[in-house]
């Protein structure tokens, strides 16, 4: 009794109710996240087609099988190409658009809303629409390009252009997301800093480079990390427009893992692949955090 009374009466029952309140979340996380992670690791050492019982194969999925899987390396390369083009392009475009729209231009809210529309739609509808726009024979994009003397490019059907097309659809879909985050960041920059820079004789570009960019670094960093994570997991647009083709031109890792698991029913090998990709994403995110963090401290 005596020790009980030492507990602040105002905090009565908080220990108990605290656990009760977080229980649904934690139990669901255990069942649908933690157990699957362990199960996935276990499966990556198995050969399993979901019909016959799983068979332990040791590291074979990671060694012999993966080493001989040329398409996995093509898929990794494709994903790298996708990331290295779409992330810088998407982030730089978002920074420029957001900077303009955070100013006092006429109609900024209308422009912002228009650019944001694709974010609200499913990638499936967006891909359907763009597949038609980019049609090689009757597509309206080729019609506009024909004014400039560019003729009949089969955007999604030509190995040279398919990946670029997929990247551009991805940027079109997600630009509004990044722009909205960066507008908020640019608007948070105190007006007085711009005024001070103006008094020091800074021109528009200098204000952008020396005031707006450094002060918005955390948001730019956030947008970049999100883009990295998303670019490694690109799937919907490939499924809807190219199915990995033509040839292997757009076969990205997530699509290859999906095919191994749900087309070839090689669950063990698909799990092993997903672990390799997870480790790559993890390393990239860590490097980015270290690099991003260092950048910030120098500014």
């Amino acid at each position: 009794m005596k020790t009980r009374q030492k507990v602040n009466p105002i905090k009565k029952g908080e220990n108990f109710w605290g656990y009760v309140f977080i229980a649904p979340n934690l139990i669901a996380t255990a069942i649908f996240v933690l157990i699957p992670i362990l199960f996935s690791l276990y499966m990556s050492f198995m050969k399993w087609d979901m019909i016959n019982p799983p068979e332990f194969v040791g590291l074979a999925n990671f060694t012999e099988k993966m080493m001989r899987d040329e398409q996995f390396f093509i898929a990794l390369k494709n994903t790298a190409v996708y990331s290295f083009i779409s992330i810088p392009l998407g982030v730089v475009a978002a920074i420029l658009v957001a900077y303009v729209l955070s100013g006092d231009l006429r109609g900024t809210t209308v422009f912002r809303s228009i650019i944001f529309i694709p974010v609200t739609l499913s990638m499936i509808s967006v891909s359907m629409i763009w597949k038609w726009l980019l049609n090689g024979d009757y597509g309206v994009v080729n019609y506009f390009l024909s004014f400039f003397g560019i003729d009949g490019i089969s955007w999604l059907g030509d190995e040279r252009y398919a990946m670029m097309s997929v990247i551009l659809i991805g940027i079109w879909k997600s630009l509004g997301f990044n722009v909205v985050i960066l507008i908020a960041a640019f608007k948070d920059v105190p007006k007085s800093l711009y005024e001070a820079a103006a008094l020091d004789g800074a021109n528009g570009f200098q204000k952008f480079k020396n005031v707006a960019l450094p002060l918005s670094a955390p948001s730019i960093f956030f947008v970049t990390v999100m883009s990295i994570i998303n670019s490694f997991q690109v799937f919907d647009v490939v499924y809807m427009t190219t199915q990995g083709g033509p040839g292997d031109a757009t076969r990205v890792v997530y699509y290859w893992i999906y095919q191994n698991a749900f087309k070839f029913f090689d669950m063990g090998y698909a799990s092993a692949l997903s672990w390799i990709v997870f480790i790559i994403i993890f390393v990239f995110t860590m490097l980015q955090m270290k690099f991003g963090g260092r950048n910030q401290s120098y500014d």
Partner: protein
Amino acid sequence: MIKPGEVKVMKKKLNAVKIAEFVGMCILAFIFIMPFFWTVITSLKAPNEILTWPPTFFPEKPIFKNYTDVIKKINIFRMFGNSIYIALVTTVGQVFFCSLAGYAFAKLDFRGRELLFKIYLSTMMVPGMILLIPRYVIMRELGWVDKHVSVILPFIFGNAFGVFLMRQFYMTLPGQLKEAAIIDGASQPQIFIRVYMPLTKAIVSTLFVFSFMGSWNDFLWPLITLQSAKLKTLPIGLASFQSLYGVQYNLLMAGAVLSVLPVMLAFLLAQKQFIEGIALSGVKG
């Protein structure tokens, strides 16, 4: 400090930049509106008119038969119903459970709180592709493949992002409210539901829109678990529609219009929630 005359000179200089910016934004807006315009135009064309070069910008004779054909060929209303049902149930659950846990992590003093929160937050790092296969196996073992429960249950109890968002908001609310309610004899659940939850309407509507969008647009997971036509959600229904009618773009675009229109209307009505939700995720994240 700056004289009015100087301001005028600066404004003149800026005008050229402003015009360039405005023109740039108009071109960008065109790139974002044109696809939708073209989708609607195509959806009103006769099958032979979509295969003309140069393409016609206004259908010779707009036909609405494409729309009735789509409705006849795929049960698009059923898909809508499925998508709305799944997104609504999932979202209501997510918002409630994220509020509950966010409140506990912000306002209740229990042992191991900080550590549990950190561990929970770290689950955000796990990419979906790791979870895909084991989750499917779990659903298969439970006999839930090709049932709506498979696309609802893994998500209904909330996620780390939502809990984080709610926790950040609850931390801004004063703790004295709780103390006053305790003195009045309220129990902990009562304090949460009656005192704190009503104060979170703004952030709840933001999280609601965010979660709804995520569930509504989810593709790969339902693609794997839902196979029956009558259970399909809009995204996977549209995907199979495209694989069946791959070159009949007049039909495909009519389907696209039907699927996009309600989302656009919702966006126009709740723009503030959509945009603030995203902006917030950037600031807090």
